């Protein structure tokens, strides 16, 4: 299988005043189509930074990020946005649903950027909500849902556009053990049954067990990958 995500010699340096802070220091990474990878490492090691680069919401200081064969490194702001709408599904630690919208409308939100008609949108939203097991909650507002349910709505929002990759930054970080397990099971299902490529940042070794491959990031460098089951 070919690499769907390729990170070539990526460096990312922040500046605090005149002081350069190297966060990523020459990352080489290749992720296969259909992979489910967990990115682990100590706090401040650059996990979120790397994930953001892969997802096209941030740019490397140097190096290349190639997703689905497209080098997104030099995309304009507008082109990047269009690209993300098409290719990236986001899952955040704090769900980040819009509180003024119902579950249904939150899932529908990214479809507003497509040319799909109302009927087609509705079909897709209902399908996505069925996959996450929340079709009976579609008219609920986020405040009427539990944390685990909110995260499932967020996952439905991430998959409704059928993106090339799913990125999740600590998707279980704010959930109790039981809800976290449900979310991880859901991600595994998306990976195995729907063949979604997933990159997940996590602190939690138990969560990382859900992934097929675990990578460790330390001081801006990637260590050897491991396989949880192996």
């Amino acid at each position, binding site marked *: 299988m070919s690499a769907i995500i390729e990170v070539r010699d990526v460096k990312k340096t922040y500046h605090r005043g005149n002081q350069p802070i190297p966060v990523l220091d020459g990352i080489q990474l290749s992720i296969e189509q259909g992979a489910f990878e967990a990115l682990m490492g100590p706090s401040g090691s650059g996990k979120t930074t790397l994930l953001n680069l892969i997802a096209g919401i941030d740019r490397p200081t140097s190096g290349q990020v190639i997703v689905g064969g497209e080098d997104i490194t030099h995309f304009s702001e507008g082109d990047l946005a*269009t690209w993300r709408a098409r290719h990236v599904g*986001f899952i955040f630690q704090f769900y980040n649903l819009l509180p003024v919208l119902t579950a249904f409308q939150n899932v529908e939100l990214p479809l*507003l950027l497509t040319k799909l008609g109302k009927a087609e949108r509705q079909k897709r939203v209902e399908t996505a909500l069925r996959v996450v097991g929340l079709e009976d909650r579609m008219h609920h507002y986020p405040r009427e849902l539990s944390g685990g349910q909110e995260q499932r709505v967020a996952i439905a929002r991430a998959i409704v556009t059928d993106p090339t990759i799913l990125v999740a930054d600590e998707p279980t970080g704010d959930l109790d053990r039981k809800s976290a397990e449900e979310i991880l099971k859901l991600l595994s299902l998306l990976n195995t049954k729907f063949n979604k490529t997933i990159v997940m940042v996590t602190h939690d070794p138990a969560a990382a067990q859900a992934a097929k491959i675990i990578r460790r990031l330390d001081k801006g460098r990637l260590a050897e990958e491991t396989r949880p089951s192996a």
Partner: protein
Amino acid sequence: MNFPILVIKSAFRNRVRTVLTSIGVAVTIIAFLFLRTFIAAWYAGAESAGADRMVVRNKTAIIFPLPLAYASKVKNVPGVSALSYMVWFGGYYKDPKQFFAKFAMEDHALELYPEVLVPPAQMEAFKQDKQGAVIGVRLAEKYGWKIGDRVTLTGDIYPGEWSFNVRALYTATSKTFDQQTMYFHWTYLNDALVEEKRDQVGILIFKVGAATDSAQVARSVDQLFANSSAETRTESEKAFQNEFLSMSSQLLGAISVISMVVLVILVLILANTLSMATRERTTEYAVMRALGFQPAHVVRLVLGEGFVISLVGVALGVGLAAPVLRFFADLFQRELGPFLGAFEIDPKLVALAVAIALACGMFSAALPAWRAGKLKIVDSLRRVE
């Protein structure tokens, strides 16, 4: 769902704040409409003046009278057609604070005002009764006076008790002609005065023919009395009223400035709400941007919110403006009747207020929108964590 629905739902995120802001917008709109209408009404009083009517007054000041003898002299000036005269009576009915205008007029004075309508039979009855009075219908309504009622005024310029019989009611076809004025016979007043106060008038009013050069006529009239003890100043009724009103030009200027200040307040109210609303929603905008929405989408969302909030406020303000202004219209008609024209909201002014308020909404949203549009996604997402 579609984008407009998203905008509306976002605008009503914080319902209390949105409603309070809308009320704030509504109040400023009402204040703006009120102040502008007040100014317009004030000037309308002057606008209504007949173009073909001329007024002769004492050159020194309006409060000084002119000798009655001037009337017959002015009548003979070429170009002068109908001529009449009247004098300001002052005085009050029962309560000095309850103001309405009272004039002692030459019997035919109202005939110079085609916009004033009096039933002929009533006019005849007025002329027959030395103590007769012609009163405006609104004045009659206000005090419940009917034909035949006896009304006693207390004089101040002309001290004493003065009794009149209501003989005629007038209406006016022009909205700006005051309908709360009382007219009575100049001869009744004159005959009651002591010798040295008699035979004086406040102003002479005359008409000039359509083809006549009214400026020339005015010069001829004033020339007649040049170097006399009572020099005159003759001008069109419009100029006369404008001058009378210009006494208040500073007041009007101040009101005009306040009406502009009100708009500044409008912008501040909206800008405050919108910048608060957008600042606490930075993460949401970042999420939308991450999902693929363009900076322009976010800009439009914020501008749209400004538009929706000001639209609600405008609708509320315009809806409430009519009853509020009607309340003040009645109040002013009672207190300031003779000085003000019709106190009615001009639809054009409403359109202007709506346009201004919506523009203010967009203007206030411009900065928050610009900020939201250029936010850095990763920084804004990080903020929560």
